[in-house]
């Protein structure tokens, strides 16, 4: 498939953004259930390609596992053990609806562009950590390895056409990790239904809510006729300053509701404004996905 130059450029930017953080290994307490086998070691003996240790032959070991080259150096037979390697698939999705293709004067980038960048940067981190990533889209494949990021960028560009704002219906592996990036401005019951469906699979993951600064602050003044982007009817506000506080409360209700919904479904939730540097949001994603650091 042909990969557009702009996709490549986004991929490069995402890679540069991801270079600020060490490779991401997903905390996967149920990793065995995903039945995946990957290239990053779990520091334990198991199935894999990488050498882990030599162990003296004990009775019962298969003859084929004896490392003859090592055994020839001494008078005991050694068995070659490989490291247990496992990878987890992380499914990524971002909302491409019309409300995401919008930016206010205060923001330098559209919410969709920021969501793309964060998704790819996260993918770059995951790929460097040896995990597998997959776009949550019909026909998407598990991707891993060096050129996966470019392919992912290309696949991402294909999903631009889906402006429904709904999660695509596709078979989700059980206990998969999901990262959903959207503005989550839909009514809370709709979101609840979606999350309930996900929790039933069961999958868990992270919701990243990307908001424009104008959506967060409502900086308009005076008489403004607000026009929706997704076929909502217009709203005439005689004096925007007067309702700014009420709007702030409404937005807080939406965000808080989302947080509690996410928590109930086993998801974590974070808020990102497009006038903030993407590194901050990436750091949040990293923190949500990385295994808890051992106390020093």
């Amino acid at each position, binding site marked *: 498939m042909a990969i557009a130059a702009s996709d490549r450029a986004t991929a490069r930017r995402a890679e*540069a953004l991801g*270079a*600020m*953080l*060490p*490779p991401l290994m997903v905390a996967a307490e149920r990793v065995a259930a995903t039945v995946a086998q990957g290239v990053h070691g779990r520091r334990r003996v198991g199935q894999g390609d990488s050498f882990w240790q030599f162990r003296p032959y004990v009775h019962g070991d298969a003859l084929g596992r004896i490392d003859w080259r090592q055994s020839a150096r001494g008078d005991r037979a050694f068995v070659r053990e490989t490291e247990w390697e496992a990878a987890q698939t992380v499914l990524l999705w971002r909302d491409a609806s*019309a*409300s*995401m293709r*919008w930016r206010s*004067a205060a923001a*330098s980038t559209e919410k969709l562009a920021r969501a793309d960048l964060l998704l790819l940067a996260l993918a770059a981190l995951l790929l460097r950590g040896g995990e597998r990533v997959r776009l949550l889209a019909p026909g998407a494949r598990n991707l891993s390895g060096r050129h996966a990021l470019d392919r992912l960028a290309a696949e991402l560009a294909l999903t631009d056409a889906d402006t429904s704002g709904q999660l695509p219906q596709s078979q989700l592996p059980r206990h998969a990790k999901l990262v959903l990036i959207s*503005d989550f*401005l839909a*009514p809370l019951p709709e979101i609840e239904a979606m999350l309930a469906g996900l929790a039933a699979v069961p999958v868990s993951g992270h919701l990243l809510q990307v908001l*424009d600064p*104008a*959506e967060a602050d409502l*900086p*308009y*003044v*005076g*008489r*403004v*006729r*607000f*026009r*929706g*982007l*997704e076929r*909502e009817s217009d*709203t*005439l*506000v*005689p*004096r*925007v300053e*007067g*309702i700014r*506080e*009420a*709007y702030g409360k*409404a*937005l807080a209700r*939406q965000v808080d509701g989302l947080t509690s919904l996410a928590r109930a479904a086993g998801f974590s939730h974070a808020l990102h404004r497009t006038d903030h*540097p993407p590194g*901050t949001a990436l*750091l949040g994603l*990293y*923190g949500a996905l990385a295994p808890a650091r051992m106390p*020093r």
Partner: protein
Amino acid sequence: MVFVEPWLLLALVALPMLWWLLRVTPPTPRTEAFPAIRLLAGLRANEETPAHTPLWLLALRLLAAGLVVVGLARPVLRAGAELPGSGPVLLVLDDGWAAAADWQQRLAAAETVLDRAERAGRPVALLGLAHSETDAAPTLSPVMPVADLRPRLAALRPKPWPDDRVAAAAALGAWQQADTAVVYLPDGLARDGDAALASAMERIGPVAEIRAAASAARLVLAPRAEADRLILRLAQTPQPHATDANILAQTGDGRTLARVGITVPAGATNGEAALQLPPELRNQLAQLVLAGVPSAGGVMMLDESWRRRPVGLVAGDATTADTPLSGQLYYLRQALGPTTELREGDIATLLSRDIAVIVLADRPVTDPHERDALAAWVRRGGLLLRFAGPRTAEISADMAENGAATGVPEQPTDGLNGGRPEIGAAPDSDALLPVRLLAGDRQMGGAMSWSKPAGLAPFLADSPFNGLPVPPEVTVTEQVLAEPNADLAAHSWATLADGTPLVTATSLGAGRIVLFHTTANADWSNLPLSGLFVQMMQRLVQLSAGVATPANDTLLAPAVALDGFGQPSAPPPAATALPASQVARTAASPRHPPGLYGPENGRQALNLATGIGPLVVGAPVAGARQEALDATLREQALGPWLLAAAVALLAIDLLLALSLRGLLRPTSLRRATVSLVVLAGLGLASLGLATPAQAQSAVPPDFPALLTRLAYLVTGDRAVDSTSQAGLAGLSDYVNRRTNANLGAPAAVQPGRDDLSFYPLLYWPVVAQGTPDPGMIAALNDYMGHGGIVLIDTRGDDSALAQAARGLEVPRLVQLSSDHVLARSFYLLDSFPGRTADAPVWVQRDQDRSNDSVSPVIIGANNWASAWAVDAAGRPAGPDLPGGARQRTLAYRFGVNLVMYALTGNYKGDQVHVPAILERLGQ
């Protein structure tokens, strides 16, 4: 306040109608796309939206309309009293020298009179009191409309000579018009013809006199020369309280050598002050200028006679006179050569030209013709300086044997040639001595003497040497002695510690004869070896009368003339040449304006002060209506200001209307508001309504000079700033643990607001923002130009750097390599990682020798602060680095190198050359 067109004020009645008209429907809404529109639905404003234009906006518009109406009615402020009569107005303006000091006020007062006349529609005539530059007597201008007279008034300049009131009174005799109002602006000085002028004006019509109340007329007089100083003199009209003035001593090219304050006591007409200048500077003195008062009377030009003092040297023994260290003239030449013009030759040759001082070093004057010639020259003002010696001692011994009368008569007769009979009768006696000398000389401290060489006594108060320090090591071993008599002490300018005179002097005519009782070389005394000798010689030379060339009847053409304001200019057309001998005595007039006369190398000065007697305050014209000059304020038309204010209000109204409709962005609105507030503040300040702002220097909470600190630039992005703070804290901690450097907690600075000079290193994480504050960039440039180091961290966002660092003076850069001092200053590094490791780091080219080869700026993208950052407990903060703990260590090492580089400059540069140095040492 007067309205020129008061009927226009009727339009104010229409304002209520305007009020009704302005109650318009609210502005049309603006349309905005907004994704979160669902959240807006059903929100209620917590206050009701006004249904019509806000009241205050309405008031603003009404005020603007009212201002337009009032402005068009042309109000006039300070219209002043009406002029009496209905016929023409005669303006009599004194344009003599004394009017120059407050000329602008006089012109303004005259313009005020013209304004009044113009409003009343009366024609005006003008009479200046002084002769014009072409020496035309004062004449009345034709009676003409005010508009035609204004250019004439504007072209009028004060003259550098006194006014001529007699001629002016004669000119007024020709006035024919009836019903005239006379306005008189005198300079306030009494002069001939005051009465005639007053009666002439009163004959014409009622007189209003506008006088300058407070200021005094001032005149710089010729200074008086004393040995080591000039006494500056200032004349002025008596004042009820003591007044201060400053006189600037200036060179010919306008440089000021000194500023002397003169205090004239209350009621006095004269003040004096001393000006002390080293001889080198005194010789450059060209004029004395009264500071702050542009007037010909405030300028005293000093010509050559104040500076040029040629000194003639004559030795008794001409063959050995110039022998270094022992010749009779050697020390004189050393002492006088640098500051004066020295001439040599025999006495007749020296006298053939003008000369100020003749020094005779042990040279008796025995030839009667020579003696007569010298005596005549001294009487004309010459200074004869003699030194004793073996020959003088011999002659005085002869004279003592002959019983001849010596010494100069106490009261010489007048006349140049009248001295001969009084001077000694013996043909070979030497009469030109200030005191009678005893025979022979006196030795002290020789091989055959008990006495010790005598030191000098301190100089007496009336001696010209008064104030010179007497070095104790100066001693006299041999001297000629004066015959003791009653007034010997009065002739003594310097004595030895035992009271015998060392320097004696007497006056002869306008000149002086001075005798040093010891030699001019080191034979009899070590005085010529001392610095005191140089100072004594210079004072004696300054004491002499200057020589002006040529003092005869050569005609000298005016070269530079002063105008009425004391500025040098081309001589006016009427200026004519003067005989040289007359220049210093001529009073200033249009034919002979004050200025410099003669050729380039022999200028003579004609000063205004010469021909002006004591300054006396003139009496006011009897029966005239008096008005003070500074109270005659220019009337002011308020109309244009009111209209301008209305336009400004309407502009504000436009902005407000736009912002109410939401058509202004918040940022630009804020900017506009700020600039409006600033403009309004400036306006208030310029109106004098605002009290002067008191600059309060806030004491910084932690004194930055007491401890070395790293600093970071506050970007305003809270996350970035806290990372910078944590990063520099971590680095400071690491440096304190690993090195001898002792760094305090990092400081947050804002260039342009904080003083950067305390910080060796400034960390600047670049964030994307608008155009940088020029004050900040200027402060950073200054910091970098004076040895500071700025570490610019783009954090991977190179495009932001170009925007944020616009205007920064970045030198030519080169990529940092491992053989740069920065890679060697503490650890040996070959990479310079932060959170990222691969981005190149840029420093100043090594060849650039400015700032000791220390790069003022280091630019990189590795996000160092994030790698250095520690939390409050000192543990690494933030997520792990891609390269793990090793990368963090390397980042710290780079930081240590950086701090070392900032603290030691290129000192560690030697480390780079250690192999070469060891090799050279023979290792």
